[in-house]
């Protein structure tokens, strides 16, 4: 066993153990912490893959940022912490996941399986010849990545699309999450009511919360 193999196994156990606890933990905050543990293990796997920039980015983006977001969301929806972690379909979900894993494992794994006429598994990946070392990563890989980000023949479109995605996510998330003033709530509901009246004969007024607490728009509708 080489040191790399030992490290890989340790990291994988961290990743998978963390992942299992994420889906099994009763307490959502603990689930979020195990999620962070799992992310940390993935950082280690990236280092084994010589993708140091991505390891640091994983640390910064997932552990430093996304997990904060998840923990905040857990706190903001705290009253809803379920007593039961899983819904009624969990046995079926378990079976589906296990079958999917078995299929992928057969396809990518080292064991050849023959089903009917066709043989699956034991793929000899094209450039990874048995017994030969994997080619080294060029030293200037980050420079190449930076070049490809701004090269229109490569990923410049993707790069700009990422910015657009960030813009859209910002707009959408702020629109959805922000606190509305009572007046805005009333206006939105009135619009909704109008729309539903257009579609169907009116049955009843939509309930308006806190209507008496503010000045409702009296005229205009």
């Amino acid at each position, binding site marked *: 066993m080489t*040191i*790399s*193999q030992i490290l*890989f196994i340790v990291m994988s156990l961290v*990743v*998978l153990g963390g*992942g*299992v606890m994420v*889906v099994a933990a009763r307490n*959502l905050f603990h*689930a*979020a912490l195990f*999620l962070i543990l*799992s992310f940390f293990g*993935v950082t280690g*796997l*990236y*280092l*084994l*893959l*010589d*993708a140091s920039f*991505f390891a640091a980015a*994983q640390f910064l983006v997932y552990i430093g940022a*996304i997990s904060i*977001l*998840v923990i905040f*969301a*857990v706190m903001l*929806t705290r009253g*809803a*912490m*379920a007593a*039961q*972690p*899983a*819904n009624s379909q969990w046995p079926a*979900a*378990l079976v*589906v*996941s296990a079958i*999917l*894993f078995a299929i*992928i494992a057969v396809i*990518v*794994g*080292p064991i050849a399986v023959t089903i009917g006429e066709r043989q699956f598994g034991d*793929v000899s*990946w094209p450039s*990874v010849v048995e017994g030969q070392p994997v*080619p080294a990563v*060029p030293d200037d*890989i980050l420079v190449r990545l930076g070049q*490809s980000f701004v090269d229109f023949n490569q*990923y410049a479109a993707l790069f700009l699309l*990422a910015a657009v995605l*960030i813009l859209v*996510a910002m707009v*959408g*998330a702020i629109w959805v999450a922000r606190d509305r003033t009572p007046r805005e709530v009333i206006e939105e509901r009135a619009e909704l009511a109008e729309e539903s009246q257009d579609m169907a004969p009116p049955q009843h007024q939509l309930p308006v919360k806190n209507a008496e607490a503010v000045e409702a728009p009296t005229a205009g509708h």
Partner: protein
Amino acid sequence: MLNGIPLYWFLLVSAALFCIGLYGVLARKNAVAILMGVELMLNAVNINLLAFWRYMAPGSTAGLAFAAFIFVVAAAEAAIGLALMISVYRNMRSVDPDKLDTMKL
């Protein structure tokens, strides 16, 4: 750093992580936990991308560029998804997807 680690080790770990995430998405009773499952699945995808990059084409930047893009997608997904959950919670006092069947505000 890859002494004696074959490619399929990484692929198996990634597949296992993906399936764990899938189980979380299918079976959890809390929408925030479901989003955690999605994050696990995105991580599995990234492991796959980087593993294939490292073993098959370490000189090319395709795998890296898409892995970087996945980071952005994951962040955007988390931001919007969790914002939706918070909004739903504010209106319904619950984030159990089984109870969110009214399609009304």
